[in-house]
């Protein structure tokens, strides 16, 4: 062994001893250490696998119509049965699930980003920016989101679901942004922000480099819980024909169709409704255990 190698070895040992466990690793260990987190994560991964890999297992695609089987109960050829039109319930359900998951994830990301930026700006700049932003937040809280989204629904024609996602996100951010604003006000008095300010770092840079990263735990938890809120809102809007438009399908349109035939053909309703509830439940479980994992004061799980 040469001297340099020995030095290197010593350095490695020293590094291992002195390195503090990273925050990500602590949070991950606490998250996966809790039963809730394990179950939620496993179920959500399963749901994603089902939505994106599941359609390959079945010979039917969501546009196929089987003209020999209308409204048939589950069987070997149609695993979840068929609809009145002859469409395969397994195929359309998974297609709807893909759409709902994508819409939910995107809307949650956009709305949390919006909440972080608006809240941080309102908290960092007291005076008229704060008053104006807080007023807009209050106004949007007063207007029932469903009402506005429903009124605007003629604008989301077929294929314009990205616009729908953005509008959905526009009505999910208000409460978080109020919390972010409050936390920014208290962060602004902390030494590291003061130091950055006196060093002449421009305010916008401080907000994006120092304020928002320091609120990351809140924002991650919030984004997770927003996923379920977005999926639920999307479902309700699509149920009444205000969201995802045919020929595209989502959980909402499928539940609307299924509820009409549910009394004599339960498979058209219960598979979709069940998958929706399980998905939302898994997302909520993950959000809850992430909150516990990020919270340094929360007691270790029993």
């Amino acid at each position, binding site marked *: 062994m040469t001297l340099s190698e020995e030095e290197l070895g010593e350095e490695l040992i020293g590094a291992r001893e002195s390195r503090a466990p990273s925050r990500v690793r602590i949070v991950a260990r606490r998250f996966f250490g809790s039963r809730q987190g394990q179950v939620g994560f496993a179920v959500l991964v399963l749901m994603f696998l089902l939505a994106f890999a599941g359609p390959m297992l079945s010979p039917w695609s969501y546009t196929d119509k089987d003209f020999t089987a209308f409204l048939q109960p589950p069987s070997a050829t149609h695993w979840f049965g068929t609809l009145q039109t002859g469409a395969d319930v397994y195929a359309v359900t998974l297609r709807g699930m893909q759409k709902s998951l994508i819409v939910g994830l995107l809307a949650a990301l956009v709305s949390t980003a919006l909440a972080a930026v608006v809240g941080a700006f309102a908290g960092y700049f007291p005076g008229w920016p704060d008053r104006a932003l807080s007023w807009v937040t*209050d*106004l949007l*809280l*007063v*207007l*029932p*989101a*469903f*009402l*506005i989204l*429903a*009124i*605007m*629904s*003629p*604008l989301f024609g077929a294929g314009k679901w990205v616009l729908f996602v953005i509008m959905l996100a526009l009505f999910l951010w208000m*409460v978080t942004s109020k919390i972010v604003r409050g936390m920014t006000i208290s962060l602004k008095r902390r030494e590291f922000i003061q130091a950055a300010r006196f060093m002449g770092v421009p305010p916008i840079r401080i907000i994006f480099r120092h304020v928002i990263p320091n609120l990351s735990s809140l924002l991650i938890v919030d984004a997770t819980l927003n996923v*379920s809120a977005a999926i*639920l809102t999307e*479902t*309700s809007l699509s*149920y*009444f*024909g*205000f969201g995802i438009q045919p020929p595209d399908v989502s959980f*909402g349109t499928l*539940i*609307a169709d299924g*509820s009409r035939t*549910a*009394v004599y053909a*339960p498979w058209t*309703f219960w598979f979709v*409704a069940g998958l*929706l*509830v399980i998905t*939302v*439940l898994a997302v*909520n*479980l993950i959000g809850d255990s992430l909150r516990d994992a990020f919270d340094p004061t929360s007691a270790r799980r029993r």
Partner: protein
Amino acid sequence: MAGFLARRLLNYLVLVVVASSLAYLLAASALDPRSNYADRTPKPPPAVVDAQLTALNLNDRTPLIQRYATWAAGVLHGDFGKSVTGTPVNDDLGRRAGVTARLVLLGLACGSLAGVLLGAYAAVRQYGWFDRLSAGVSFVVLAVPVVVLANMLILFGTWANANVFGRQVFLVSGEYSVGLDTGFWGSALDRVQHLILPTVSLSLGLVAVFSRYQRNMMLDVLGADYVRTAMAKGLSRRQALIRHALRTALIPVATYFAFTFGTLLVGATFTEKIFGWHGLGEQLINSIFTNDVNTVAAISLLAAIAVLCASLAADLMHAALDPRVRAG
């Protein structure tokens, strides 16, 4: 206290004006009443369509700001304009508002009362079987959207009618049976039978939210010194919990109440539409499909007023429960 209320009221008034104007402008630009005439046979000449739309203040060739001015002037005189069929919007509004108010108020009363009581009980018996059960159940309930819940209740109702009772106990469509002639008590019973499932569908979500919230608030308060003092003074545990702990723990819940009210209105819309109640929510959904701008705007205005009344009520409740607000 009076100054505080007056300032709040003024702020809310401005919010109502802005919110309803926004709703009108959005509705007027997104909905297209002209398309209602497109698939009529024989096709009406464009001049006739224009004249009719102008008479209803729905013509999209008139500048938006001018239509808005006409609408706003009407609203200030208590006139919401005409629907697409030419009938005044005001006609049906009162009756429909009554139907919605009955559903919302009953759902709110049942939901918040049951939620607060369940949450408080769960907190007193922390980690007992009731606490665990209510935590699990409310977690599941929160994952079920109202549209699914209402349909599940309808399925459950028809199943129970057929298999448990053998007769129609839960009625799942409409507010009352048409043409029923059984005197006052008969029709009262009929209305209650129609009311049960929609109320459950509306209040179950509220119970779940309020019970979790109340439990956490109650747990924060239970260990407080003043509760121990109250018991040391000779109050029984029950009295100390109800008079001192519950009252303090109710304050944040009262604030939360204002936020949930908007959600509740939306939930009432779904419930009405699914259970076939002819209330404002059902009217809203129908009028969006028929491009009925004036009706949509009128209902949005009422919704904004209702939400702000709830916020005002929350402020008043807050003041009643917390002496510091009254003093400050």
